[in-house]
């Protein structure tokens, strides 16, 4: 196992992040919005629905897990480090590990119609707004 260069500031920041992560975790609150900032997410609007585009290069599709409930979507998985034996490492900039992130949306979702697509290292989630959440036109009599 090759570890990166150790930096005392990194260690401190990691500790702080872990402490802050605890505070915002489900242990103290009844809802979680996120359990870590990885992977980065962009959310776009597409008519009534939302489209989340997530950068996740080099992740095995089978290790990706997407769950949805009401207005939250959970993306979890593992970015595994595959390295052949007997090699020496010259440069290591890519990061590996497990991730688990929950995204909260301001709209209620229809979990049955959510579509997920993973291509070229990009995970696209089509998040349709629930019919019951859509605004209705009221007829004036």
């Amino acid at each position: 196992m090759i570890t990166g260069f150790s930096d005392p500031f990194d260690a401190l920041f990691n500790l702080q992040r872990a402490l802050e992560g605890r505070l915002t975790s489900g242990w103290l609150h009844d809802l979680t919005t996120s359990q870590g900032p990885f992977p980065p997410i962009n959310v776009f609007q597409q008519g009534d629905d939302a489209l989340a585009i997530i950068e996740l290069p080099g992740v095995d599709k089978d290790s990706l897990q997407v769950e949805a409930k009401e207005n939250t979507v959970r993306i979890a998985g593992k970015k595994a480090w595959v390295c052949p034996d007997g090699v020496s490492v010259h440069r290591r900039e890519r990061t590996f590990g497990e991730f688990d992130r929950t995204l909260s949306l301001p709209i209620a979702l229809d979990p049955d119609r959510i579509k997920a697509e993973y291509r070229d290292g990009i995970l696209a989630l089509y998040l349709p707004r629930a019919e019951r959440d859509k605004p209705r036109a009221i007829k004036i009599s």
Partner: protein
Amino acid sequence: MASTQELQVQKKREIESKEEGTIPARLFVPVADIYEAPDALSVILEMPGVQKSDVAVNVEDGVLTVQGQIDLTKYKGLQPLYTEYNIGHYARSFRLSSKIDQNKIAAEMKDGVLLLRLPKVEEAKPRTIKIN
């Protein structure tokens, strides 16, 4: 505290060059891993969103250049609600040593990750000398 360290987001590094681009898009430096095996060097570059057909790998004057174009048309007409990262094309170049056999470089693209295999020239490979 969790036993495994959480994955952190890597900030994308934008290319700072003297020349300015002529296309209205950002250019990022893809993160890279380089491994050396006895017979070859492996360069692995992360370029999420780049299709296999949009990658160009060139070798000129001993400099290996990798360019990846993303399909910006996919983002046309989309209204951003919440953004955490920027998108753009990718470019990075490496100077090759004379140990690399430049005619035998192989490339493979999978899930936004480009794997380049740079075989060493025969003379540079390790060998054992037999003792008579």
